[in-house]
């Protein structure tokens, strides 16, 4: 029982919507969702990770988000994590993600 991912692409922004459980099983889907928008000359693109429908995340999801950040250009990356429910918000805070991502 894992989640599903849908992607909306606009001119300079990629929105990745994650529903259900965001765990290890999602790694191929998640990578596929951003891979074509990262690397090479694609830097400077904005990513929005919409956790509105996300029920659960574990450490592998945190690892995936860190990898996305790296592949999107680490410090030049512009990644926003939105609509996380309170439990997930707490996990993000405990992991100190507010220093690396914009959390709203």
């Amino acid at each position, binding site marked *: 029982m894992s989640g599903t991912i849908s992607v909306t692409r606009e001119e300079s922004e990629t929105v990745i919507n994650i529903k259900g459980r965001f*765990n290890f099983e999602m790694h191929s889907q998640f990578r596929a969702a951003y891979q074509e928008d990262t690397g090479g000359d694609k830097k400077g693109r904005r990513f929005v990770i919409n956790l509105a429908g996300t029920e659960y995340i*574990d*450490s*592998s999801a*945190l*690892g995936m988000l860190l990898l996305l950040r790296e592949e999107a250009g680490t410090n030049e990356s512009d990644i926003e994590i939105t609509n996380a429910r309170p*439990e997930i918000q707490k*996990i993000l805070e*405990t992991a100190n993600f507010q220093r690396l991502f914009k959390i709203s």
Partner: protein
Amino acid sequence: MSDELARKLSNDLKAELNREVASVRMEMEQIRDLVQDAIVRLTDSFGGMRDQSNRQLALVTTLTSSMEGNSDQEEAQEGEDAVKRINIRSFVSETDQILRTFVDHIILVSRQSMEMVHRVDELATQMNEVSSLLKDINAIAELTNVLSLNARIVAARAGSSGAAFSVVAGEVRKLSKNSHEFSDKIGAVVGSAKTNIHAAKNIIEVMASKDMSFAIESKGRVDEMMEEVSDIDRYTSETIAQVSGIADELNQSVGNAVMSLQFEDMVSQLSASMERKFAVIEQFAEVIGIDQLTDESQPMAERVEKLQESLNMQIQSFDEVDRQAVQQSSMDEGDIELF
């Protein structure tokens, strides 16, 4: 005869007066000594109380400063055993730091694992490519086999002149068969590589996937502890403030008590004044002799006048002593020295 009796009575009266005055004077001296003795002891004892209260306050202050933050620790570092004091606040923040490091570590492991999984996925894709390449090789082998079959048929039609060619066709067929076997073996290796890749992915999954609720709970507990430590600190400093307030009040009270004990001076002065008055009273016995009144060799009016004169002098000298005493005590009242 009556003169002699009168003189004796007069002497007896003087003697009795002196005896009584001496008795009162002795008791007065006892009182003075008792009071002075008590004052010395009370002063000592109040001084001791003040010292003890100051020591108590100092002890409580050191005890609490050892429980507080870093600024106090820096001061404490001058004493050797002061450094090793228990510091709850730094213990809790140390725990918080360890927890943070632990969480960071878990996330780092997950990040590395996810990167590894991407590599392993790429490896799996490459293995699939190998499989499809093997299919191409098999197709070539199949084609070669067909080719060799055709060659044999052509060779058979050619008869004896084609015999040598038939041998070559047989070798080509063997080659095709070998290459088929070879690619099957590679296929088997690729298959087991895929199995290994799958197993590796399972291991990585376990490594990468940690439930984060433990971190949240631990963090919550550490935060609670921090809160409690702050409460304790607050309570402690309030208590210290109270203790030091009480110590101040105690000092004040002791100061007042010690100040009040300076009535010792007044006691000395009063007893000195009483001493002088006793002297005057003793003089009274000398001045007013009963024999003067009964001395019939003088006219009555003269005796009374002389006695009246003596009484006036007595009153005058007593009043003078009394005035000195009043002056001194009123001056000292506003002039109590503070310790």
